[in-house]
């Protein structure tokens, strides 16, 4: 390890300080929310800077390390200045008073124990397969090796003979790994593993802290427990694929939008943050482009319908500003290096129509999706639906409705995935077998977030029970 290795963490510190500027009036986000957002921002922005350096200056060496660290140090100072005003932590909307504190302590202990066990599981899997699983060696870490080992010929990473390694896949994860190797000055297998663990923990931390900020600590802890009630997150995280980072960016975008909708002070900063996270989603995997389109479409309809066109244009400007760095990198990559997607290769209007008109393909996909839904956490989806029915919706419509845009975005993404399967050029059962669980994982943290955003907290459900008899009592009184 070189003496410059610790400087690789400067973007994380800068992100943490910048996240402090995401205020709402006199309130500030919690430390865990800032840290969870900072991780994704740091990985995304640092990957864009690394890519820009490759294009403009070639092989990243000491000058890159110095410039990169200095750039993020300046951004950190900007963040420290912008967020320096003291503020109180963002208060939870849901009343805590009627809810026994011991239950919160128990839920907290369960959530932390599950996360701890998940980390141990992650480490054990990583020790078994330090280079990651199949796609890590065939695609993600392979690309990182080319970018690092290639020197001034780093563009050999996109040699046409490497088409089998999915040259159209965006570069956030390989660039992040290559960046860490550059700082370390060696190809330690712990670098991609640490990145993968960071994204896994940040996904969990973001779900808990964003739900806590929006709906109270209890709801955050319930979300954290539900997320880890299936081993999928930590298991797939250890594979060193791009699916968990993508799931993180889906969640980060939707959380930033929901937090921005609640923020009363300067919500535009949250829109910029949402744009950045959506851009990083597209810079992580091609599925992120579908997500980006869905987010833009849903916000257009939701904001124009409720707050008018002017409000939307203001929001869209902030979103576009945040989107710009990752989107610029993605456009350059797609135009300069990427072949057309394998999913579109060889697809003619004739074959497309034939597949769309084939009912057996629909049946196959629906059966596979139904099977996956039932098997997911052995009935966990049904349990969460039952939880929603038992506790009911959030009592105030303004709060209950906040989960709806996120749910619609996820529904559109899933619909997109569905039609990709219908039209895939690959042998459909094979394609379903090797990708369906990973696609489900993309939306899993966001689905838990959207569900619990619109569900009553236990305290609210109990308060509603108390309010009903009182209301009845008032109604019985003579007027």
């Amino acid at each position, binding site marked *: 390890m070189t003496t410059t290795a610790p400087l690789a963490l400067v973007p994380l510190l800068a992100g943490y300080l910048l996240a402090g500027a995401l205020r709402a009036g006199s309130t500030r986000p919690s430390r865990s929310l800032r840290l969870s957002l900072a991780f994704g921002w740091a990985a995304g922005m640092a990957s864009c800077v690394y890519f820009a350096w490759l294009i403009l200056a070639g092989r990243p060496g000491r000058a890159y390390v110095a410039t990169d660290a200095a750039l993020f140090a300046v951004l950190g100072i900007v963040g420290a200045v912008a967020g320096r005003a003291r503020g109180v932590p963002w208060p939870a909307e849901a009343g805590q008073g009627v809810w026994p504190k011991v239950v919160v302590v128990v839920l907290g202990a369960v959530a932390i124990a599950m996360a701890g066990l998940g980390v141990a599981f992650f480490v054990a899997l990583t020790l078994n397969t330090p280079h990651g699983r199949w796609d890590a060696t065939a695609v993600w870490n392979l690309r990182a090796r080319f970018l690092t080992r290639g020197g001034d010929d780093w563009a050999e990473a996109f040699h046409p003979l490497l088409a089998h390694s999915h040259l159209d896949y965006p570069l956030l994860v390989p660039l992040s790994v290559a960046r860490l190797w550059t700082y370390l000055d060696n190809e330690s297998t712990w670098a991609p593993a640490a990145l993968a663990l960071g994204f896994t923990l940040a996904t969990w931390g973001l779900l808990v802290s964003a739900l806590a900020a929006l709906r109270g600590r209890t709801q955050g802890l319930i979300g954290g427990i539900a997320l880890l009630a299936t081993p999928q997150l930590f298991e797939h995280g250890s594979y060193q694929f791009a699916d968990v980072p993508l799931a993180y960016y889906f969640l980060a975008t939707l959380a930033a939008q929901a937090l921005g909708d609640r923020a009363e002070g300067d919500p535009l900063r949250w829109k910029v943050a949402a744009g950045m996270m959506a851009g990083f989603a597209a810079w992580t995997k091609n599925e992120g482009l579908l997500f980006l389109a869905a987010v833009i479409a849903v916000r257009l309809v939701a904001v124009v319908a409720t707050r008018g066109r002017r409000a939307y244009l203001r929001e869209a400007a902030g979103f576009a500003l945040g989107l710009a760095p990752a989107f610029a990198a993605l456009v350059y990559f797609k135009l300069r290096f990427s072949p057309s997607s394998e999913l579109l290769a060889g697809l003619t209007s004739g074959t497309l129509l034939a597949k769309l008109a084939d009912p057996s393909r629909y049946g196959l996909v629906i059966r596979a999706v139904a099977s996956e839904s039932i098997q997911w956490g052995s009935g966990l989806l049904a349990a969460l639906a039952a939880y929603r029915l*038992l506790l009911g919706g959030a009592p105030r419509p303004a709060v209950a409705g906040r989960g709806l845009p996120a749910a619609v975005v996820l529904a559109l993404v899933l619909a997109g995935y569905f039609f990709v399967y219908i039209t895939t050029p690959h042998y459909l059962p094979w394609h379903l077998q090797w990708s369906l669980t990973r696609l489900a994982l993309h939306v899993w943290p966001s689905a838990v977030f959207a569900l619990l955003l619109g569900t009553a907290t236990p305290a609210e459900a109990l308060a509603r*029970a108390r309010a009903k008899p009182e209301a009845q009592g008032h109604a019985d009184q003579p007027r």
Partner: protein
Amino acid sequence: MNRLRVTLGLALILVFAARGFVLITWELRLAARGIGPETDMVTRAEARFRLVADRLPPRGVVGYRASGPLSIDRDYEIEGDDRSIGQFVLAQYALAPRVLDLNPGPPIVVHDGLDGIRVMAEQAR
């Protein structure tokens, strides 16, 4: 009534949490049994290819033959038997930034057969 519903709801979440806890503990136990670099096929492949890497050019296109026939189909997927596909992916990972070519033509070819790895010049073949 609502207290019962809330209790049931939380109990449901905790039951699934307990189930998840047991499941992850079980899988952790299974994973812990196999820990060690000798069990990882990528680590083993890296060690095998390290022996021949210095006989290859540091970068550029190099021919490659696995134990079975391989090709890239029009959807960019590797076609062949599972063993040969695995060999090829591991070889490409270990030998990067060299680009492995399954087609005839490159002057230097890596033969990754059942009897070991050999580097052969085009003329020798």
